[in-house]
């Protein structure tokens, strides 16, 4: 009986030394201040044949983060990557943003992105967060890796009123490495 209790206590102590950490903010986390979340749509650019536009986002890192608000800028941006690009976006209703994120290759599980608007500050922000899960055992983290992964997305969000600023905030474990 004595040994059983010792064994259970030891197991509890050891298991408590290893835990998973999770750096994602749950969707809808309180923004504080006067923020609301905008409806966003993922955008997959296509070329004339109808095939989804392909490129390697890592190739463009870190200059990939860009916000496009009119057709001319959109055509210029995508046609530089593929001359057969066709632009179906209605820029009277939407703006387009793209981002790329750098993170450790073995730790990323998922990404979350959202666009928030604040009418009082006349500002809009894109937040991108990497969901990572890792086990920390006695101070050693399994997230440590010299290899990086890159992740990119295009998002359409409602046309911003004139004069509203747009800013991207990226939270990823390796973003500043």
């Amino acid at each position, binding site marked *: 009986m004595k040994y059983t209790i010792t064994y259970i206590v030891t197991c509890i102590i050891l298991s408590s030394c290893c835990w998973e950490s999770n750096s994602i903010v749950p969707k809808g986390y309180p923004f504080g201040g006067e923020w*609301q979340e905008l409806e966003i749509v993922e955008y997959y650019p296509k070329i004339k044949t109808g095939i989804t536009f392909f490129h390697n986002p890592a190739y463009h890192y870190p200059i990939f983060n860009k916000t496009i608000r009119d057709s001319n800028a959109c055509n210029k941006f995508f046609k530089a990557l593929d001359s057969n690009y066709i632009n179906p976006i209605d820029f009277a209703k939407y703006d387009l943003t793209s981002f790329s994120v750098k993170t450790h290759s073995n730790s990323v599980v998922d990404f979350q992105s959202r666009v928030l608007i604040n009418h009082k500050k006349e500002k809009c922000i894109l937040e991108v967060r990497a969901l990572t899960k890792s086990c920390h055992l006695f101070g050693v983290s399994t997230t440590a890796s010299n290899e990086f992964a890159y992740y990119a997305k295009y998002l359409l969000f409602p046309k911003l009123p004139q004069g509203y600023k747009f800013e991207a905030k990226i939270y990823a474990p390796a973003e500043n490495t």
Partner: protein
Amino acid sequence: MKKILFISSILCCTNISSINIHLPIAFQPYIGISRMFTSLGGTNLLQTGLYYNPKNTILFIQVENNLHHLNHKYDWPGVGPYKYQRHINNTVINFGVNLFKRKRFSALIGIGYNYTETSGKLISNNETIKRNISKGYFNSFHKASICATVSYRIKNFVSVYANYHGFEVADGYRTTFIGLGLGYNFLSEEL
């Protein structure tokens, strides 16, 4: 200037000799205003709580609730006005020590367990607004926090306090609550 006059009038009205500091506070229900700070801004909340100090110990336990529930008005230029209901409810149970329980000025430090619930709801009949803004969200989470309170007994039965508790939900999302208010003291008869 008005604030300084208000505070000084409270202090002048206080009869210091009437305060029996040897009788520590046993129970203290309190009420005040708190502000929740996140990386994106602040929100005001109504703070209510109950502090309990068991006899002949410096340990305390405290239960506190911070609540915000309001419909905020906004205007999307060129589209129209709309309302957005914001609800934040934070309940925290703190444990810790009261460093100067027999003094007029006391300081409490401890750790706490938080349950926080947040939700938002769009209130509008405008189709464009409904298409552009998320119709709502609900989120709840449990977090451990650290807490600190400083309290000053202005009368035997009345104290003013300022408190703090904070935790981090994720990178860049440190959440801090700072509160300010008044408490009513039920004194202990311990020796």
